[in-house]
């Protein structure tokens, strides 16, 4: 089992779109895949038409003996399951803090699913918190969608510092440019001269209306616009991640 976390300190960079599309592509290849929507906004759950609610909320998941697998829901796609979001996840930080080894709880929760899934994707909420620390500890790969803007690049440095401070091996962190708008000079300049202090994937995800239409169709891009630019970009991104 490989755990892939899609994370960025900054919000609105395309984390959920990347998680949903990459999860779908992994499942399409026949890999048993689970997406865990950890963001209380529940956007990934929305895309999969699944109610963002779990019994007893996040606290129940952490405290009861109930396994994570009991709240798993099948999506409309073969081999692809989802742990839905819950509004109570907004308090997850506080709840995690009550535990011994509070930064390892998500990793512990995922352990029993090792034999059941080939890939687990974590759709992370933005910010720097105990949840972020948990996610970074649980993931084999941390993919960081990054808009080629000054503020976004600043967050890459912040993630690097955060990894260093928490003792997480920064080589597991892979950034990729997301929501690129080639009409913008700044985007083009940053893509042409990318930052050297972080591992950067070659594939870039364009700013495309098809990605926004995911909210209308409530489906991954490849389902309703298989040959679109966005769909092909996600396919290329998945192939690149797989080849590492």
């Amino acid at each position, binding site marked *: 089992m490989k755990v892939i976390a899609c994370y960025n300190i900054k919000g609105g960079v395309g984390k959920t779109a990347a998680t949903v599309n990459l999860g779908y592509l992994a499942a399409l290849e*026949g890999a048993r895949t689970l997406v865990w929507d950890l963001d209380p906004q529940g956007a990934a759950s929305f895309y999969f038409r699944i109610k963002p609610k779990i019994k007893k909320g996040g606290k129940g998941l952490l405290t009861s003996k109930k396994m994570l697998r009991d709240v798993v829901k099948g999506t409309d796609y073969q081999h692809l399951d989802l742990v839905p979001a819950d509004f109570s996840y907004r308090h997850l930080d506080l709840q995690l803090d009550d535990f011994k080894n509070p930064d390892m709880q998500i990793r512990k929760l995922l352990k029993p699913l090792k034999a059941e899934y080939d890939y687990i994707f974590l759709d992370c909420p933005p910010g720097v918190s105990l949840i972020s620390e948990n996610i970074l500890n649980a993931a084999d790969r941390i993919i960081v969608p990054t808009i080629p803007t000054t503020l976004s690049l600043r967050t890459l440095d912040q993630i690097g510092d955060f990894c260093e401070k928490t003792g997480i091996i920064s080589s597991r962190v892979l950034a990729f440019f997301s929501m690129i708008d080639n009409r913008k000079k700044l985007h083009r300049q940053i893509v042409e001269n990318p930052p050297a202090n972080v591992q950067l994937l070659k594939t870039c995800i364009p700013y495309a209306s098809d990605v926004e239409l995911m909210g209308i169709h409530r489906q991954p891009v490849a389902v309703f616009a298989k040959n679109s630019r966005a769909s092909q970009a996600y396919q290329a991104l998945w192939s690149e991640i797989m080849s590492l």
Partner: protein
Amino acid sequence: MTIIDRMKSPQSTVFTLGQDADVELLFELLRRQYPVHEVSAAQLKRHYLDSFDWRLYRNNRVCGWDMPDGGERKQNAGVFFVQDRKTGDNVCECSIDRIPRFSRDIVHRICRRILDDLLDVRALMPVVAVAVRSRQFNILNKENKTVAVVRMESHALAGGMDKAFHTGRLIVSPVKGYRKIFMQLRRYISGQLRLPYEQIALLDEILAAIGKAPDSSVYASVCRLDDSLNTWEAARILLRHLFRVIRTNESGLRDAVDTEFLHDYRVAVRRTRSLLSQIKYIFPARRLAYFKREFYWLGQITGPVRDLDVYLLTFDAYRQALPRAMQEHITPFHVFLERHRKIEHARLCRKLESKRYQQLIKEWREMLDSENVQSCVIWPQSVAPLETINANKPIRQVAGKRITKLYKRILQEGNSITPESRDEELHELRKTCKKFRYLVEFFHDFYPENVVRDLLKTLKQLQDHLGEFQDLYVQTIQLCGFAEQMQQEELADAKTIMAMGVLVEKLNARKAVVRAEFEHCFSTFAQPDNRVAFMNTFSLQHQSRDRTV
């Protein structure tokens, strides 16, 4: 694959759909009860596949290839699938435009891995073809999310089959996390629509209809024996079983379906030879000499093809053993192996057509058909009583004596091997181990299961070790010969010869390591605890004491 097009998770429920069932009416009734969306309606031809020895079936799996029936044939329209045999739930599926023969023919990573684990080097062969009409409906919730799947299928034997067969099924599949609706749906179909639960797996029903059943005789290496049998009766049962294995593997061997046909054929020949030589004084001497010679000949003529098969099966490992820059240089060696395998295989097929082979088969069959050793029509007139003195003795006694003798010989041969011993001595020990193992496996029914299991486990470790050593010994010599032959056939340039030289060096180094480990490996097999366990179980004194008590 976009929306669920097959069943989602395990434990689907299957209902019987009568031949006269009105699918439209069923659909209408379901629609009145639940929000239903028809996903697909298809007409296809399904080819069920399995290996010759039913590896998938024995592992509760079914695999096949679906091809849309009628209309224009599109590229990659075929779907290969692996299902759970009992529930029909899909384990994996992928698009592929022709029936795959080996797991390596499948590009799809997961399907290939699953099939690799089940099939190993065996080929898929057609089992039966059926025509399938299928309609699939998704049960939706308020969010238009699929919460259960209903599929209606009808199956009939595909063209060319004489027997009329028709079966229909309605399959309800749950979606993970929506158990309540699934249970409700099941209750509705069973209670309101009054459809009965289906008890028999689809493939089993089809196989029964065509009078075909997985034949255990093609994969069971041994058969069961009663210890009240006399030696001739027991030997006859075992030899008949082995003869059946030889005969059933013959056509696959000739057609070169996969390498296991020849392998199993050779193992059965070796076991036959082992019985002929180890269970003494049950056959008249002259006949015995004839059969021993002829089965030895069978071993000889099948050897070259098997050797080449082993090289071809090991080829990837050879390539990996080389430095990356040299890996491509041994590709001509693969071409050479393929070429010579074809030649040797054709040669073998000619020998299997020969009068000599036909005569052996005929005489062997006649001998095995004889009820008792005296009544055998093919015996020469005068058989001295001493020649068949063991024939009427209890098999348990004769076998036990022989097994004990071979065990002692293994200990003696193994103990005499020192670091200075010649390689051939290890080969002799290997042969003795093989004979011993065959006998223990033939007569395992007479002894406690756990003792036999433990004995075979340690024996197998020793055999694997000796086998690896022997393979390395032979390969280092043969590879040099092949390199020369390739030069003569202008198949190898300097780079290839150099790569093969590096390979021989690597094999030699590995051989030295394996040789150094022999002492440890043998001492594990021969440790006092194992010896005591063996003697307590197999020694004749112990057996007779048991009986007296």
